[in-house]
């Protein structure tokens, strides 16, 4: 009997894992915390802690066992919870400072629970404010600087715009202030790495900092995030003379294979944990490991330096092909499913910045068709809060008008000017501070209010 698998197939899988960094980037357990709501803040904290530590108790250990069974690394194990602003209302008082203090207590409880079960991030210090803000939403947003300065693992996300509701400029202004204050409270502004503001945020996104367990979800679910720039780069290097449509075919095949591995692992992990298997997020996400760069794959396809003309077209083709291959391999696709140009986490993007081919404006352009937004972008510490609000509003309106997700995770690095180097460390990488236009949209953002939801036809 011949081998059921050709040696070529077996060696290809092994090469993908060992040389091309094929991995499952994250398995994220969503936990519904709505039942933990309580007017007594201590009781609420106790319920939250118990719920998370019991439901996620086996997450890391089980993931490690499955990783070794299949030989495919599972890099991050994480938790996403119900947006915290939805839990806060009953525990708040008429006094804003007292209410903020209670919100911070809940945040610290989530952080403690996450560390107890050994996950590296927990997401869901979030508010859904695309139309208007409740008292609890406002308290949560205003508490963000203190929360990010006082926790290690907690991530915060604010949904400030959607295609159905438009953009809430008052919320954007509040978040811009929170970003600025968070930067001043944490070393090199690093707290801002755990804060993201969204348009059209998916409720099942497994990736941080934007993961939360949405209100349309059930009691729990396991969502899986795939990445794999290294594998795609290898395809490009093996097919140097193919036309673009031939290349797209090759990438589709690879997209299928990597998604099938993710589907196998996610499904088994969900079964072993006794939770529902949610979605697979088909994204291209960089890491600082050599070869694992989104910028480099764009250059491999034939763009001279990332951000130069051709980058948007190349990136759009790549992620579209990954998704076309992946969609057949997965039972349910969801989450962000886009390209992350996480500037500080991508060695190729750093080189592009140093060569001068990548700008904030080009990042914005790419987000209109394929990328998820401005991610891990360091800007000068003296950028006015109104400019930050303007950058956020621009990026989110791209999502609103194009009916897609866009997001901003931006770090105004204190005491740094454009061009200076900043090191965030570990997974968060390092970057050059990107220049921001010196013209400030003061009057626009100060008008406040809401940009109404857009037309969905006559759309040119």
């Amino acid at each position, binding site marked *: 009997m011949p*081998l059921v698998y050709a040696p070529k197939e*077996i060696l290809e899988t092994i090469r993908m894992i060992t040389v091309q960094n094929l991995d499952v980037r994250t398995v994220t357990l969503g936990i519904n915390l709505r039942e933990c709501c309580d007017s007594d803040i201590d009781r609420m904290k106790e319920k939250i802690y118990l719920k998370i530590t019991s439901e996620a108790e086996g997450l890391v250990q089980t993931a490690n066992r499955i990783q070794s069974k299949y030989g495919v690394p599972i890099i991050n194990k994480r938790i996403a919870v119900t947006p915290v602003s939805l839990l806060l209302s009953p525990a708040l008082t008429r006094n804003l400072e007292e209410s903020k203090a209670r919100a911070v207590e809940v945040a610290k409880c989530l952080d403690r629970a996450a560390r107890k079960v050994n996950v590296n991030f927990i997401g869901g210090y979030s508010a859904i404010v695309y139309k208007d803000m409740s008292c609890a939403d406002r308290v949560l947003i205003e508490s963000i600087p203190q929360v990010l300065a006082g926790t290690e693992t907690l991530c915060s996300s604010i949904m400030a715009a959607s295609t159905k509701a438009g953009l809430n400029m008052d919320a954007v202004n509040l978040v811009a202030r929170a970003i600025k204050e968070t930067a001043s409270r944490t070393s090199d502004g690093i707290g801002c790495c755990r804060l993201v503001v969204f348009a059209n945020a998916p409720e099942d996104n497994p990736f941080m900092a934007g993961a939360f367990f949405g209100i349309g979800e059930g009691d729990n679910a396991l969502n899986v995030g795939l990445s794999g720039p290294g594998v795609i780069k290898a395809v490009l290097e093996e097919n140097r003379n193919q036309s673009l449509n031939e290349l797209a075919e090759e990438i589709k095949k690879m997209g299928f294979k990597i998604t099938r591995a993710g589907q196998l692992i996610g499904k088994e992990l969900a079964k072993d944990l006794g939770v529902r298997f949610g979605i697979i997020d088909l994204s291209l996400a960089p890491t600082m490991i050599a070869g694992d760069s989104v910028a480099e794959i764009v250059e491999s396809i034939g763009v001279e330096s990332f951000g130069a003309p051709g980058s948007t077209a190349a990136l759009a083709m790549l992620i579209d092909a990954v998704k076309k291959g992946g969609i057949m391999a997965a039972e349910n696709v969801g989450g962000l499913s886009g390209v992350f140009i996480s500037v500080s986490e991508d060695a190729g993007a750093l080189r592009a910045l140093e060569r001068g081919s990548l700008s904030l404006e080009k990042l914005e352009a790419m987000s209109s068709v394929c990328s998820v937004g401005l991610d891990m972008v360091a800007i000068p510490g003296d950028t006015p809060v109104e400019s930050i609000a303007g950058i956020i509003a621009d990026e989110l309106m791209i999502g609103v008008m194009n009916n897609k997700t866009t997001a901003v995770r931006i770090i105004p690095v204190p005491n740094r000017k454009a061009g200076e180097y900043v090191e965030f460390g570990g997974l968060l990488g390092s970057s050059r501070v990107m220049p921001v236009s010196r013209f400030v949209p003061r009057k626009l953002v100060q008008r406040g209010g809401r940009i109404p939801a857009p037309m969905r036809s006559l759309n040119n």
Partner: protein
Amino acid sequence: MEKELVVVTAMGLDRTGIVASISSILAENRVNIEDISQTILGKYFAMIMLVDITNSKVSLEKLQQHLVKRGEEMGLEVKVQHENVFKAMHRV
């Protein structure tokens, strides 16, 4: 009963005794070799075995540890992976 199959690959510089050494650990643990294939990639040697662990005396983790350790002693990179990952990636 359906067999539980695992793929064992050993890669490294070609030398005598690789197959014997890996096989002896499998035999000691009552792991049956279903099939075996060898490929030479330049000066490198790759041995691929499909083995049945249904009656194994030890868990998959323990078997992995034994084989990887033996591989290290012989200068080989040994991987032990459940067959489902190959089925998922290479069969529709």
